[in-house]
């Protein structure tokens, strides 16, 4: 059924174009600022001015930026893999009605979504486990997530059980059935959860802030925060590059800040458009009660 294009439609389109611009433009602005010639960059509004990658080159010659990027990538991959494996296997176990004390076990996990011990008890506990200044702090605490467990469990319960039953008759154990039948069937939800977990890992910085002082274990988010906030870091970079008189382009503190913002954002911006449908699927499934 074709409907006329009314004044309302015109306003509606305009409104959404405006909303889109408000959402996207800050990202775009930071990107074009970061690739402009730093001395002209303050005049940038719509297009980059005097293209230059000098700031990026300088930043990537600094060990702490490269190292932090590596740590962030490492925690994202390892943390996500651990979450996916542990949480999906646990979800499979709690779908089994015959499990001893299943209700109790299930509730035991779900309760953790609502009860939060608070900052100091968490801090002291992690420290007592020896996770201070330890890379494992980034990946261990998130290995089992009750919320993801519910999502996966709900999905598994929607699968036909006949396949599993025939495997059971063939004498396969729980672990084998999970690995070769159930897990492959759960690909859609596992993909969704992997993406959630990866984004959360990439974005997480509070663990870093509270418990990791080790320079070699800093994450990209923390580096970004420090650079935006403290003139000191920026001054260090600048003086380092000042010495390099061969540089035709002078690097400004603002340009450094913009470049680091881009470095910390780009991984999300790159994967995001391709994965958006998974995000949406996840929230729809989340709307269905677990």
């Amino acid at each position, binding site marked *: 059924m074709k409907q006329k294009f009314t004044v309302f439609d015109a306003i509606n389109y305009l409104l*959404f174009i405006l909303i889109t611009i408000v959402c996207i433009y800050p990202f775009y602005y930071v990107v074009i600022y970061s690739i402009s010639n730093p001395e002209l960059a303050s005049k940038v509004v719509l297009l980059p001015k005097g293209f230059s990658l000098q700031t990026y080159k300088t930043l990537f010659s600094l060990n702490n930026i490269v190292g932090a990027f590596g740590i962030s990538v490492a925690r994202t991959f390892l943390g996500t893999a651990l979450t996916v494996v542990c949480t999906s296997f646990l979800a499979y176990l709690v779908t089994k009605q*015959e*499990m001893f004390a299943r209700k109790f*076990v299930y509730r035991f996990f779900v309760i953790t979504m609502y009860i939060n011990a*608070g*900052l100091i008890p*968490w801090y002291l*506990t992690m420290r007592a486990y020896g996770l201070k200044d330890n890379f494992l702090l980034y990946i261990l605490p998130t290995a089992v997530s009750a919320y993801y467990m519910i999502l996966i469990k709900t999905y598994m319960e929607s699968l036909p059980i006949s396949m599993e039953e025939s495997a059971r008759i063939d004498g396969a154990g729980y672990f084998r059935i999970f690995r070769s039948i159930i897990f492959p069937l759960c690909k859609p939800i596992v993909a969704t959860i992997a993406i959630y977990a990866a984004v959360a890992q990439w974005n997480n910085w509070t663990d870093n802030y*509270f418990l990791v002082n080790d320079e070699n274990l800093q994450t990209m988010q923390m580096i970004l925060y420090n650079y935006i906030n403290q003139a000191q870091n920026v001054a260090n970079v600048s003086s380092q590059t000042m010495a390099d008189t061969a540089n035709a382009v002078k690097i400004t503190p603002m340009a450094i800040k913009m470049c680091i913002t881009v470095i910390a954002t780009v991984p999300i911006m790159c994967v995001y458009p391709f994965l*958006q449908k998974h995000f949406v699927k996840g929230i729809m499934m989340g709307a269905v009660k677990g």
Partner: protein
Amino acid sequence: MGKFRAGKIKPKYRLFFMALPFIIFVFAFAYVPIFGWMYGFFDYKPGLALSDMEFVGLKNFMKIFTDWRDLSRVLRNTLVMSGLGLLAAPIPMFFAIFLNEIRRPFFKKFVQTTTTLPYFISWIIVFALSFAVFSNEGLIANILKMMGSTKAFTNILGENDAVWCMQWVLGIWKSVGWNGIIYIAAIAGIDAELYEAARVDGASRFQLIRNITIPSLYPTFFVLLLLSISNLLNNGFDQYFVFFNPLVADRIEVLDYYVYKVGILINDYSYSTVLGMLKTLFSVAMLFGANQLSKKVRGESIV
């Protein structure tokens, strides 16, 4: 493992033993910290074992009263931010309703993709973007300068009067697209026959929205509203930490920030533990209450 396979252990116990490592793991990471609430009843001294610390009963709870001047300000900020959040609750619903009126699937999808992006970046990146736009060397200052303005530029992120509004708007910016998705899904689930029948009766587009779409979205709206009411004291830490600066301290310190300030900056572990503990207990009670209310009103629980 061999022993399990041999079938000596019944499947129901085998399953339980397979889950046991996860139970222990979650116990260590989610339950053990709760035992740390005990520190709230002791006079915490770094380096001492709990048995060597002095048991002080409710002394740390009494600090709430001596600290009331600060704490009441923090609670005011917390409730203001939560209240503003509740005021903004209908925005994602209307976002979804109007987006649904757009008929080009490509444009619809494009809007959805772009507006959900802010949800997936950390508050640190939001802070960095705000810095790029609002700071003294940022976009707005630069544009004003190019237009020949000579007035001294004031950074809005350092304006005490603007901070509530600013944080509110940033929160909406970050979440409206994402929260809209739930409503878009709900709209997609409305029976198309309802619309057909109404159209045959000559209903206009606005009548359709008012009499079919909005009433169909009430249940979703209600659930989300209840959940946000139960989160009254949980504004989150990240946002208020990254946007904190001394100029706006008076109005930006919410409870989650204050727990951090008392614990980490002032180093009063015991009092901070007490505040965190009361906050959690209050939230659980609120959630429980909201759930009961939902059961009564809708005959369905929300959690």
